[in-house]
């Protein structure tokens, strides 16, 4: 069954869309990742124009993180103060990202920029995930191996404009969280992702936040930045396709619920390797498309269309 997408102005198979949404939802439920970094490139592969894929992907992030952030707010595992600082940075980053996105679109280079960012970030995340899960497996075989130190004081903690973050038990400068938030906002606008994959490690290793508030606070920032970015894309580009979003969200929420239950029963570490390999495979496919001589050297852009 084909579905006509009114904004993308093309038809795609409804079951493919539900499959993409459901599959990524399943993975995100199993591993607790947002999945935006898989949805957007998968949309490129099925022929959705990159600007629509990015804007609609970021809309889908709102749907996939909203129930998580509500649950964390109820459990009081959100550092609202830190979340707000990160959010302010995120909004600034999103504006910068949208400006850059629209500039590149006018110059005819947006597809390249989006693809390049995906190659770089998927490559890094995939490699880190693979390394992390291999190390975890080795550690479980050899329980006496030394553990890594989680939190150490660095120059980052000595910057001016210090602020107290009681929920996190931190007294640090506002600049590191602002900059981290900004980076995430830029990624959200250009790549159509939530950015949790960058935010969570940055909060743990860079800011030194305790793990109990990391997930809730990052979800808080990601949800609002994604919502803001959706609005920005809708207003400046008209590239959010709600028909496409509806199918992705429908597949995604069902997939995520199933994934959460499967994730509880299965051995996570071995599966994490599979997820890392999947991320690397998507990265490889995009890289291949950029490096390999294309069969058609020419492309057409029609002003006002995607």
């Amino acid at each position, binding site marked *: *069954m*084909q*579905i*006509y997408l*009114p*904004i993308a*102005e*093309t*038809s795609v198979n409804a079951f493919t869309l539900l499959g993409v949404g459901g599959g990524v939802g399943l993975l995100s439920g199993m591993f607790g990742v947002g999945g935006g970094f898989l949805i957007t490139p998968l949309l490129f592969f099925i022929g959705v124009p990159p600007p629509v894929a990015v804007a609609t992907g970021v*809309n*889908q992030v*709102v*749907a*996939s*993180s*909203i*129930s998580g952030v*509500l649950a964390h707010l109820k459990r009081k595992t959100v550092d609202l103060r830190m979340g707000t600082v990160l959010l302010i940075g995120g909004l600034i980053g999103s504006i910068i990202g949208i400006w850059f996105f629209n500039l590149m679109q006018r110059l*005819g*280079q947006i597809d*390249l920029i989006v693809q*390049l960012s995906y190659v770089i970030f998927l490559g890094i995340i995939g490699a880190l995930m693979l390394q992390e899960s291999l190390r975890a497996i080795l550690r479980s075989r050899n329980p006496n191996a030394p553990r890594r130190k989680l939190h150490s004081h660095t120059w980052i903690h000595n910057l001016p404009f210090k602020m107290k973050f009681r929920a996190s038990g931190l007294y640090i400068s506002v600049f590191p969280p602002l900059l981290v938030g900004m980076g995430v906002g830029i990624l959200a606008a250009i790549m159509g992702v939530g950015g949790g994959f960058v935010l969570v490690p940055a909060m743990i290793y860079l800011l030194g936040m305790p793990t109990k508030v990391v997930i809730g606070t990052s979800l808080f920032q990601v949800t609002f930045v994604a*919502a803001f970015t*959706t*609005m920005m*894309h*809708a*207003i400046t580009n*008209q590239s*959010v396709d*709600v*028909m496409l*979003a*509806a199918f992705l*969200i*429908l597949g995604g*929420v*069902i997939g*995520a*619920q199933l994934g959460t239950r499967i994730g509880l029963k299965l051995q996570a570490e071995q599966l994490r390797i599979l997820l890392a390999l999947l991320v690397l495979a998507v990265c490889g496919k995009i890289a291949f498309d*950029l*490096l390999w*001589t*294309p069969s*058609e*050297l*020419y*492309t*057409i*852009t*029609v*002003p006002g*269309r995607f």
Partner: protein
Amino acid sequence: MRVLLVLMLCLAALPLRAEEVIAGLSQNRVSLTVNFEGSDILIYGAVRRETAPAETELDVIVAIEGPPQPAVIWRKARRAGIWVNTDAQEVRAAPSFYAVATTRPLGDILSPEADLTHRISTRLAIFEARSTVDRDDPAAFTEALIRIRENEGLYQSRDGDVTLEQDTLFNTRILLPKNIVEGTYSARIFLVRDGDVIDEFETFIDVRKAVLERWLTNLAYDQPFLYGLLALFLAVFFGWGASAAFRLVRS
């Protein structure tokens, strides 16, 4: 007396429309509904004549043209190992859809002059911009435009696809693919003899998004703020609603 003579001469100079074409379409409206997969249009018609047909061969050309749009054609080149858009050429207007169906190969039945007057072949339907940049191969870009759109089914050259029976009845089918844009499509039918167009008939196909699709597109472009809020509302509603529903089911 002199006035009368001039009038007579004028009348004599008018071409005698010995043969006229009358045509119809299987549908004058195409609705881009949620499950739109393309639409097959049947173009049929007849040749009306007062006198016996001429000895030379009669041919029929059917041309369907979608709304013209400006376009930019990009060419990639390898830069630092990766393929990047480097050169661009603008086209002032290119039809978003163009299909030509004929009884025999277009080049054999239509003289270049007649083609130029009526702009029938695909190449002539594209209006190139007068580029200020001197490029060594401006034609390559227009050819690429035609090639890409032919691969997408947006441009079609269908030589010999029109069936003409007893020099009177003709019909052909043209597929409007799933990726067509909205607008008014013109369908022109030409009668051709000795390389010249002897009669022409034009009718229109209205391609419109269906009610919901139309409403969404209008909202997205006219009220982008409201549209963004709608997108967010849907995301929040489904995202939160689904997990709430699952919680209910589980308890």
